[in-house]
C-alpha cells in the first residue's frame, strides 16, 4: 500500500483471474513443472500409443523371446517375444486410466461423506465412522479383491474396486480436516451472516481442506496403480495379453536373472508416473493457497 512501484504491478495482478494466478504460480515452481512435463509425456504416450509404438504390443514372436535391448527392440522383448517398449507405451493408457478414474471415484464418494460426517456430527457421524472403521479394518488391497470378486474380473472393475477401497481414506481425511476448520472464526462469521450450511461447506470449509486432499490424491493415484498391479498379479486385473505395468512387472519377476529389463523398465515407468503426480500435487497445493502464492 505504501510504495507506489508495487501498486502498479498489483493493479495489473488484479485483472488476473484466479485460474491464471494459479497457473502463474505453478510455472514458477520448478518441481511442479518437471512433474507436469513427465505427466505430459505419459499423456502423449497414452494418447498416441498406436502411432508411437514400433510393434503391436500383443504380437508375439517366440523365436525372439527374452532379447536384451537392441536397436530393433529398444527395451528388449519379453518371454513371448513381444516388444517391451510398445507394451509400456500401451500400458500407460491402462495405468493412467486406473489412477485417475479410481481416485475420482474415491473423491466423489469419500469427500462429501467425510464433509457431512464432520460438519453435522452426532448420530450420522457416529454411524458413518463405525462403517468406515469396518472398511479400514481390512487392508485396501483385500477390500479391492472382495469388490473385484463380486463385480467380476477386468480392468474396469479394478478401477471401481480400487476406487471403493480408497473411499474410507478420503472420508477419514476430510472429516478430520472439516472438524478443525469448522471451528474457525470465519465459519462462525458465515453463520452469523445467515449463510446456509451447504454454502458454508462448499465455499468456506472444503476450500480450506484442499491441501491434504490434493496431497492424498497424488499419493492415492500412485497407490491405485500399485494396487491395480497387485490385482493384475493375482490374475484379477488386466487380463493377458493386455499390457498392464503391474502385470508386466510380476511376470518379468520370473526372468529377473536372465532378463532384468523386463522388470526394470515397467518399474521405472511406474516410478516416473508416481513421481510426476506427486510433484504436480505438491505444486498444486501451494498454488491453490493464496497465502503461499504471493510470498516467493
Amino acid at each position, binding site marked *: 500500500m505504501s510504495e507506489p512501484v508495487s501498486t502498479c504491478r498489483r493493479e495489473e495482478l488484479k485483472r488476473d483471474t484466479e485460474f491464471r494466478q494459479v497457473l502463474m504460480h505453478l510455472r514458477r515452481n520448478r518441481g511442479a513443472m518437471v512433474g507436469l512435463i513427465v505427466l505430459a509425456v505419459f499423456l502423449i504416450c497414452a494418447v498416441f500409443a498406436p502411432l508411437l509404438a514400433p510393434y503391436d504390443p500383443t504380437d508375439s514372436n517366440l523365436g525372439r523371446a527374452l532379447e536384451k535391448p537392441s536397436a530393433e527392440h529398444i527395451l528388449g522383448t519379453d518371454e513371448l517375444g513381444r516388444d517391451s517398449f510398445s507394451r509400456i507405451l500401451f500400458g500407460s493408457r491402462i495405468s493412467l486410466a486406473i489412477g485417475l478414474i479410481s481416485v475420482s471415484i474415491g473423491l466423489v464418494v469419500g469427500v462429501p461423506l467425510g464433509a457431512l460426517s464432520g460438519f453435522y456430527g452426532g448420530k450420522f457421524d457416529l454411524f458413518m465412522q463405525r462403517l468406515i472403521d469396518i472398511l479400514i479394518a481390512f487392508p485396501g488391497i483385500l477390500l479391492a479383491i472382495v469388490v473385484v470378486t463380486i463385480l467380476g474380473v477386468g480392468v474396469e472393475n479394478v478401477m471401481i474396486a480400487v476406487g471403493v477401497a480408497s473411499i474410507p481414506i478420503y472420508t477419514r481425511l476430510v472429516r478430520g480436516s472439516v472438524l478443525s476448520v469448522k471451528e474457525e472464526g470465519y465459519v462462525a*462469521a458465515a453463520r452469523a*451472516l445467515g449463510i446456509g450450511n451447504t454454502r458454508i461447506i462448499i*465455499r468456506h470449509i472444503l476450500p*480450506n481442506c484442499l491441501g491434504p486432499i490434493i496431497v492424498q490424491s497424488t499419493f492415492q493415484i500412485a497407490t491405485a496403480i500399485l494396487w491395480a498391479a497387485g490385482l493384475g498379479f493375482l490374475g484379477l486385473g488386466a487380463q493377458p495379453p493386455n499390457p498392464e505395468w503391474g502385470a508386466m512387472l510380476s511376470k518379468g519377476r520370473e526372468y529377473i536373472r536372465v532378463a532384468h529389463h523386463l522388470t526394470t523398465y515397467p518399474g521405472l515407468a511406474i516410478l516416473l508416473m508416481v513421481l510426476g503426480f506427486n510433484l504436480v500435487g505438491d505444486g498444486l497445493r501451494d498454488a491453490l*493457497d493464496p497465502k503461499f502464492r504471493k510470498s516467493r
Partner: protein
Amino acid sequence: MNEHEPMLRVEGLKKYYPVKAGVFSRVLSYVRAVDDVSLEIFPGEVYALVGESGCGKTTAGHTILRMLHPTAGQVYFQGQDILSLDRAALREMRREMQLIFQDPYSSLNPRMTVGEAIGEALEVHGIARGAARREKVEHILEVCGLASYHYRRYPHEFSGGQRQRIGIARALVLEPRFIVADEPISALDVSIQSQIVNLLKKLQKQFGLTFLFISHDLSVVKHMADRIGVMYLGSLVEESFKNEFYSNPLHPYSQALLSAVPVMDPFRKKERIILKGDVPSPANPPGGCNFHTRCQYARTFCSSEKPVLKEFSRGHQVACHMVLDEPDYERSTPFG
C-alpha cells in the same frame, strides 16, 4: 433513552455446558457459562458487557445472537422471540443483527478475497450481485477506512487492524441495526486499538447502530459505552449508566475492577483493591453470592443467600447484600 421500547430484551438467559465422562458420556455436572442474565438494550445505545476472562461475556453475546443455543431464557429482538424462529426466519433476522469477532486472523477465510468475503452475504440474501454487489462492497470498504482497490486482495495481505476493518465491513454490509462486538480490539496492538474504537464510534453515529460491546478493557469502555453491565462468573452483578458507574461503583467486584485501571496522574494516590484467590470454577460455583469467596465485605449470609439484581438508584442496579443494606447481612458475622 428510556422512553423507547428496548431493542433487545434478554430474560433469564442461561447457557450450561455439560461435563461428560465415561463410555456412555454420563453428565457429571454443568459448566455455568452464563447463569441467569437479564438485560435490556435500547435503540442507539452502546451497552458494554465487562468482566474478566472466562466470566461468560462472549458466551452471552453469542447466545443472544443464537450462534449458540441457550439452556434457558428468552431473547426478544424488536419484540420478536429470536429463540423460537425457524431457520428461514432466523436467516432473515441475521440481516438485522451482526457480530464483530475478537480475532481478526481466524475470522477471515484465507481463501476468499475481501470482495468475496464481504459480498457473499449480499448475494445470499439476494440484495445485490455482480456490479451492484461490487459497488456496495467498495462503498462499505471506504466507509470502514479501507480502499476500494482492496476488493481483490486476500486477507493475508493485510495487517491486524486492517483485517479487523474488513471484519467490521463484513458485519455492516447487510446494514444491520444491532451489532454484538465481541472484544473487537483486544487482539490488536495498542496503537491500532484507538483507531478501531474511533471507527466503531463513528459508524455507530453515522448509522445509528445499537451495540452490545463486550470488553474487559475499562478505559475503552469508558470511551465507547452509554451503559455498562458487569459480569462475574456468568451473572450480572452491576448495571449502570457510564458516568454513574465510573464515579460511584457499588459492587465490591466493580470497585476492584476499576481500581485496576491505570490513572494518568503519577502523583495521584490511588487505593488499589487486590482481590485474593482465583475465580471459582463455573462448573462448581460457590453457594450464595458468587463473589463471596473473594469479597472483603463478605459475611456468612453471603455464602448462603444469592443476591439478586435490584435497583439502587435510578438506572443503577446491583446484586450485593451489603450495598442493598439487607438486614440479614447486617445481622450475620464476617465470613472466613
